[in-house]
């Protein structure tokens, strides 16, 4: 535990540094620009799924906000 925090901070900085070397040039975004490659490719489908699982399971959110919405749970 004594070294826990510094190790965590160093790992996060390393991850951050790693992320800065990741990525593409603006002209290399042909595939990423596709609607199917969006993080949420079909927002309405995600919204319908969230409603179903929110009303049948004890977990909601994670991808986006979890709260409120309906009396179904």
């Amino acid at each position, binding site marked *: 535990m004594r070294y826990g925090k510094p190790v965590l901070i160093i790992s996060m900085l390393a991850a951050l540094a790693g*992320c*800065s070397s*990741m*990525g*593409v*040039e*603006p002209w*290399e*975004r*042909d*595939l*990423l620009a*596709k609607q*199917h*490659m969006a*993080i949420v*490719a*079909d*927002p*309405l*489908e995600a*919204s*319908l799924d969230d*409603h*179903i*699982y929110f009303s*049948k*399971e*004890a*977990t909601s*959110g*994670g*991808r*986006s*906000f*979890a*709260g*409120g*919405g*309906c*009396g*179904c*749970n």
Partner: protein
Amino acid sequence: MNTQTKTTFKTCPKASNACQAIAAASALLLGHAAQAEGDFWDFSKDWSFDSAVLYYSEADRVQAFEAIVSATRETDVDDKFNFKITLDSLTGATPLGAVVQNTEQTFTRPSGNGQYTVAAGEIPLDDTFRDTRLQLNAQWTKPAWSGVTTSYGLHFSKEFDYLSLAGNGSLAWEFNQKNSVFSLGLSVASDTFSPYGGIPVAHSQMVVDRVQFADDDAYRAAFDATRDRADDTKQTTDLLLGWTQVVNRSTIMQFNYSYSSVNGYLSDPFKVYSVVDNTGTVIETNGLYAHYYENRPDSRAKHSIFGQVKHHFDESIADFSLRYMTDDWDIDSQTVDYKHLFYVGENSYIEPQFRYYQQSAANFYLPYLLDSQAQPEFASSDIRLGEFTAYTLGFKYGWKTDSGNDIAVRLSYYQQTPKDVLGNHPGQLANAEIYPDLDAFFVQFSYSF
């Protein structure tokens, strides 16, 4: 804007590419400026629409129909307005929480008006579940300052017995040539539950008229004594921290941490739990069977971690996500979601979908209570707080029409399998089916234009 560009091209000498490029760039800029000033508030322009309908059906239980229309307006100054309207309708039966018995059982409807009977050996289902809901959402996303985008939203949802109002705000900071995005969001919601018949007193006994009352007034007085308020509220605050990272030309990742705090009335006013003796039979006290309205803590704090990777292969896209959630009710859950989109020809695709979900039980969940046990402060027999695994198998087919609009059809099957949290059960419950399982299918049709 195209017209302007074409006109400007004509004034350049044929050989001067640089001149053409400058002219095109200035036309673009001028176009932007003109749009920014003239068209920003002109809501008759620049709309795109997405719509979807869903039919959801559980074997012998709930049926639901839901329709969504989403209208998005993207202006040339990169502001985005989204308005969404959702309408859904639910009917059918839902587990009451009372334990199965080898004799017929009679229960009172939540309103206190009328009864329903459950056959011997059947898990008690409340067949009065019926509701229609209207939901409206508005979201405004706007570039704020260098590399930072803000987004504000409002949410309204109304059912016959439920009202939900929420607002949200978030900041997204793009850096590293827009390859990294850090986001921070806050959402606050206030919900009001006003069930027909009122909110039951926690742990009060369900009053069932078995002709033991002198008249209707005596029954009604006994029923009303189990209700102490017409409505109650809960407040939800969600905090979301997100990191999106482009890895390379074909891979993108996202990591989210979210914290959710809910305070207020978190019980389900329609659910009960039963007390049984050492033969597994529901006991009788005060001339009534021992079915008590549930009671949950008035606060819940949830933490969740979500990670997603999308990768574009030559002719397909894999979408994989994991979610871990833990809360102070001792519920832990894991979710695995995997979708793989395969392009078929120029204009269509198929997408098999798989989802696995597992949760542990809340620390106050019990399928029933033994009469030898002391009454706990919190108790619920709602299977959604129990331990179970669930999976969903889905298949989607989508195509682009000749006019460039997107259509998709999706068929999914969802199954929940409860796990026994007790191990053994007394008397008549030893071989009974105690936990309700769930089989559902849903069909979705989407159209974007």
